[in-house]
């Protein structure tokens, strides 16, 4: 590459000159040019394990596999063991027809080969496939102030906002390259300035809003900028208790997928907002007031992508991003209560609860037996990957996930409504 205006260490310069091999030179050139595009002055060391976004062995992404093969052939690995997003299919727990199975085999024909590549590059284990790597049962949990190069958008926004670690919203490819070098260009959300809020979000609802719709409203308004949310701690309190973490996880994922939010602050609640309060607001702050009317407007604005809106739902996906242990327990209890109330043995619409392998394992230790026969299934897949093909996209699938709604044909309902849809269908 031509000369760089970044301040590189002697070792980084040597790598860039190709003294440690051509492949590592290309890795370094990619990172340095990427950093330059954002005005980064230097690379800074990563202090916590990677999490990668690309978990699916799609036939179409051959150039990516070629890059990984080149990295492997040069003996390169990530600086620490990594977790990665969920696998795309689970024939045992998520129903597919023979034709769909053939289609999955075609679309994700490289899954086994790709997982072999991941193992060689530093995959932690067979159970490391989840988008919610920060859950206690998974254990890829950064500390406040850690520097990361993560890419899964829901994990990025959680790490930045709820934990107070620092990562940019990296693309697939850049994630693995930064984690091979063990460094990231210092810009954006890695800097104090980049973590200042551009938007003041004034929440003025009469009760705690649905996390998925609130996150969606914020994401659609601020897109990639940083919001500072007031009024929410009146309902959530000022402690990061398990149910609050669940709420923030789902709100953040919706803001990251409906927009491109990488960091939010909640007044009196999230770590940086607790420490710095409104000093986090930029001088030229923009304001967005969210009340019940605004949330209803956002909810009603979602396009319905089904050709026949009154069709009986084929299945219901809960858990995008993956559910916490607390959330699985709540959903199973809620569904069982509803079955008892309605004197039913099975849910009329199958319910697929998605979570991390480690969380599912933990849940099963004390789980009630026979919930599968009741129409409730547990899986560790990514429902997005399941739906991203022409056959599954035609199925009338409902979800409580605003992220899944955004990237697929799934129809969104808030928690309170989706229970009714599961048991009574669509009128």
């Amino acid at each position, binding site marked *: 590459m031509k000369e760089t205006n970044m301040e590189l260490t002697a070792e980084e310069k040597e790598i860039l000159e190709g003294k440690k091999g051509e492949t590592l030179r290309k890795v370094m050139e990619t990172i340095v040019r990427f950093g330059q595009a954002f005005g980064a002055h230097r690379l800074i060391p990563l202090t916590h394990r990677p999490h990668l976004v690309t978990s699916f062995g799609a036939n179409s992404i051959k150039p990516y596999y070629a890059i990984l093969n080149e990295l492997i052939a040069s003996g390169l690995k990530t600086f620490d063991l990594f977790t990665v997003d969920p696998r795309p299919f689970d024939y045992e727990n998520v129903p597919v027809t023979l034709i769909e199975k053939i289609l999955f085999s075609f679309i994700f024909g490289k899954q086994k080969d790709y997982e072999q590549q991941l193992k060689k590059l530093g995959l932690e284990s067979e159970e490391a496939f989840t988008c919610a790597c920060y859950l206690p049962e998974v254990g890829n949990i950064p500390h406040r102030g850690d520097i990361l190069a993560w890419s899964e958008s829901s994990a990025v926004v959680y790490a930045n906002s709820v934990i107070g670690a620092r990562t940019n919203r990296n*693309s697939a*490819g850049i994630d693995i390259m930064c984690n091979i070098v063990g460094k990231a260009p210092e810009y954006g959300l890695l800097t104090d300035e980049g973590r200042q809020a551009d938007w003041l979000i004034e929440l003025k609802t009469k009760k705690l809003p649905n996390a998925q719709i609130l996150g969606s409203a914020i994401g659609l308004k601020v897109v990639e900028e940083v919001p500072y949310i007031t009024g929410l701690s009146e309902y959530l309190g000022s402690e990061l208790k398990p149910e609050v973490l669940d709420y923030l996880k789902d709100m953040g994922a919706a803001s990251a997928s409906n927009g491109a939010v990488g960091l939010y602050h909640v007044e009196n609640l999230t770590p940086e907002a607790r420490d710095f309060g409104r000093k986090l607001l930029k001088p030229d702050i923009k304001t967005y007031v969210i009340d019940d009317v605004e949330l209803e407007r956002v909810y009603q604005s979602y396009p319905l992508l089904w050709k026949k809106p009154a069709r009986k739902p084929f299945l219901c996906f809960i858990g995008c991003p993956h559910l916490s242990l607390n959330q699985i327990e709540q959903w199973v209890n809620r569904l069982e209560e509803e079955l008892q109330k309605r004197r039913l043995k099975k849910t009329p619409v199958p319910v697929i609860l998605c979570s991390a392998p480690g969380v599912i394992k933990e849940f099963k230790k004390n789980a009630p037996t026979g919930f599968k026969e009741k129409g409730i299934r547990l899986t560790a897949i990514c429902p997005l990957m399941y739906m*991203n093909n022409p056959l599954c996209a035609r199925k009338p699938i409902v979800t409580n996930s605003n992220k899944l709604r955004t990237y697929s044909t799934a129809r969104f309902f808030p928690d309170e409504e989706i229970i009714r849809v599961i048991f009574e269908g669509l009128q």
Partner: protein
Amino acid sequence: MNKILKGRVIVAGNLKGEALVSHKGFNTLASFQKSLVTRAKIARCSDQDNKDLYQKVITGKILCLPQTIGSTTGGMVILTVARMGLHPAAMLFSKPIDSLAAAGIIMTDVWLNKKIITLDSLGDDFLQTVKSGQQLEINEEGEVRILDS
């Protein structure tokens, strides 16, 4: 009279070609998803939410856009469509480039040795001025000339 705008050079090059204008964020995965799955020879935009581009040919065009949006697989999608020959010839950003597009464009240059000519920070006025179908001329210094039709 031809109008000239100046941007910041991300990947330099000289090119004359046809503009394709997206006034809203370009969702990379949604736009190329159908072409990737069907292994099309030419990519047509499959993002139903993008009224400017839906079903229009992207391959070989000078894509004029504010930024890219959507899944963080976006960079890898750009790399893949470039390898398949489905990529736009150039990408002209009215705003500063976003991290997903930058990743894809730089990885394509470094790892595939293929250039998608790229300028950013052309200004909001750029997308108000340029129209789909117009001929544009780009030079290595980062100048964009909108040629009279």
